[in-house]
C-alpha cells in the first residue's frame, strides 16, 4: 500500500489533518475573547498569563505534584486490591454468586457522594484522599478482573485439572495472563474515575492540590486562574490517558498481536464491549 510510504510531506499532511481543528478552535477562542470585558469569560491571553504566573511562582507545580501523588498511589492500591480480590472471587464461583448483588450495588453508589463522609471521618489530610481515590477505583478493576477470570474457556480449566497443575502455577501462568487484558480495561475506566475523585476531593476540602487551586481561585474571583487550573486538569487527564495507553501497549503487546488472528479479533471485540 502507498500508505506505508513514509514520505515526509505525507506525514506533515497527516499531522496537519489531525491538529488543525484543535489549533483553529484555540485561535478562535484567543481572538474572539481578546477584547472580552466579561468577568466570567476572560480573554484567553489573560488565562495564559495566569497559567504562566502560576507555573513560574511554583504554586501550580506543587499543587500538581500533590494531586499526581494522590492519584498514582490511589490507582496502584486499587489495582493491587481489585485484581487480587477480583481473581479470587472470579475463581470461587459460589462466592461470586453470593457477592454479586453487593458488588453491583457498590458500583452504583456515586463515589462523590461518599467524599464528604470520608473526609468528615478521616480529616482533610492526604491519606483520606488517597483512600477515597483507591476506594472509587477499586470497583471497575475488581468487576473487570472477575469477568476476565470467568472468560477462561472451560476446556482450559479441564485440561489444567486433568494434568493436576498446581494451584499457584495455574494462578500465575494461566489466570493472571488470561484476566490481564480485562483488568487493564478496568484500570482504564478507573483512571477516569480517579481523576474525577481526585479533583472533587480537593475541591471539597483541601489545602493543596490542583482542585484546591481552582476552587480557591474561583472563590476569590480570580477567574483567569480558575480557568487556567481547569485547563491544567484537562491536560492532566489527557496526559494520564496517553501514558496509560503506552503502559497498556507495553504489557499487552502479545495480546494485541494475537488480534491479527480471527479468534484474537473476536476477543478484542468482546473486551471493548465489556469495558464500560
Amino acid at each position: 500500500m502507498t500508505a506505508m510510504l513514509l514520505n515526509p510531506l505525507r506525514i506533515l499532511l497527516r499531522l496537519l489533518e489531525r491538529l488543525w481543528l484543535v489549533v483553529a478552535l484555540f485561535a478562535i477562542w484567543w481572538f474572539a475573547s481578546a477584547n472580552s470585558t466579561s468577568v466570567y469569560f476572560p480573554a484567553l491571553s489573560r488565562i495564559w498569563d495566569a497559567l504562566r504566573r502560576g507555573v513560574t511562582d511554583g504554586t501550580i507545580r506543587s499543587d500538581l505534584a500533590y494531586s499526581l501523588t494522590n492519584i498514582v498511589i490511589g490507582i496502584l492500591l486499587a489495582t493491587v486490591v481489585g485484581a487480587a480480590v477480583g481473581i479470587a472471587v472470579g475463581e470461587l464461583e459460589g462466592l461470586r454468586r453470593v457477592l454479586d448483588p453487593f458488588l453491583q450495588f457498590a458500583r452504583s453508589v456515586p463515589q462523590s457522594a461518599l467524599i464528604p463522609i470520608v473526609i468528615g471521618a478521616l480529616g482533610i489530610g492526604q491519606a483520606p484522599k488517597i483512600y477515597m481515590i483507591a476506594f472509587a477505583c477499586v470497583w471497575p478493576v475488581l468487576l473487570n478482573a472477575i469477568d476476565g477470570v470467568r472468560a477462561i474457556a472451560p476446556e482450559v480449566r479441564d485440561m489444567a485439572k486433568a494434568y493436576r497443575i498446581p494451584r499457584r502455577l495455574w494462578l500465575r501462568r494461566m489466570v493472571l495472563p488470561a484476566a490481564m487484558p480485562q483488568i487493564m480495561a478496568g484500570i482504564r475506566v478507573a483512571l477516569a474515575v480517579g481523576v474525577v475523585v481526585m479533583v472533587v476531593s480537593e475541591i471539597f476540602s483541601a489545602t493543596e492540590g490542583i482542585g484546591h487551586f481552582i476552587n480557591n481561585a474561583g472563590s476569590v474571583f480570580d477567574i483567569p486562574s480558575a480557568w487556567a487550573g481547569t485547563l491544567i486538569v484537562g491536560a492532566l487527564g489527557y496526559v494520564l490517558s496517553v501514558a496509560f495507553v503506552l503502559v497498556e501497549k507495553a504489557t499487552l503487546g502479545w495480546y494485541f498481536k494475537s488480534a491479527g488472528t480471527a479468534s484474537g479479533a473476536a476477543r478484542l471485540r468482546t473486551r471493548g464491549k465489556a469495558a464500560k
Partner: protein
Amino acid sequence: MTISEKVYPPTAAPSSAKARRRRGAGVRKRTRLLLWQLVTVAVIAALWTLVYETGALSREIVPPPWDVVHEFLVLAVTGAFWTALATTVSNALIGLAVGVVVGVPLGLLLGISAAAYRSAQFLIDLCRSFPVIALLPVMVLVLGATSEMETVVVFSGVLWPILLQTIYGARRIDQVIADTVRSYRIPALLRFAKVVLPNAAPMAATGVRIAASASILIAVGVEVLSLTPGMGGNLARAQTDGAPALAMAYVVYAGLVGLVLNKVLWIAESRVLSWNRRTTEAER
C-alpha cells in the same frame, strides 16, 4: 436485588419424579444462595456495629446501622425526599437526552467520513479525558448553583461515551458487507439506512447505557459539591448539619437509583435490539 427474588416452594405438582427432583435441587440451591447473602448482610452489619461501639471512627461521622435503616424508611414516606429524587433524576435525564440528540447524529457523521473523524480525533480525545467536574467552580460562577448548571455539566460529561460508541459502531463494518455495497453501487442514502444505522445502533445503545449511569453519578456529584437542590444537595447538607445517618441513607438511595436505572436500560436495550443480542451472545 436478589434479596427480593421469590423462592417458589416445590408444591406445584411437577409432571414427573425427575422434574420434581431437579426443581427441588434448584430451589435448594437458590435458598442456600439467599441464606449466604443474608449472612453477608449480617456480617457487614456486625462489623459496622463493632466500628460504632468501639468508637474507632468518630460517632458523629459513622452512625449506627439501625439509625441508617430508620432514616432510610422515614425518607421513603417523606414528600420532600421524592421531590429531591425527582429533581436529580430529571436533571440527569435532561442532560442525557441532550447528549443523545447531539452525540448520535454527530457520531454517525464522524463515523461515515474518515477525513472528518481524523480531523476531530484529537479534539475528542482531549475532551473525553477532561474531568467535567473540574468545570464545576467555573460553571457555578457563570450559571450559579442551579438545575440548568447541573444539566449543562451532565451533558458535557455524557456526550463523550455516546459520541465515541456511535463513531465506533458506524465505522465497524464487515469488510464483506463493505465490498458488497461498493460492487452493487448501493446509493449513499440507502447504504446509510440499511447498513450504517443497523451497524451503529447496538454500539450507540451501549454508549447511552454507559452515559445513563454516568449521568446520575455526575448529577449527584455536582449537587454534593455545589449544594444544588436535589439528592446530592440534601446529602451534603445532612452531613454538615450533623445528621450522618440521614446522609448515609441518601447514599444508599443514590446507589439504588443507579442500580435501577442500569437494569431498566439493560432490559430496554435487549428489547429494542433483540436481534443483535442474539448474535452477540452466539459470538461469545
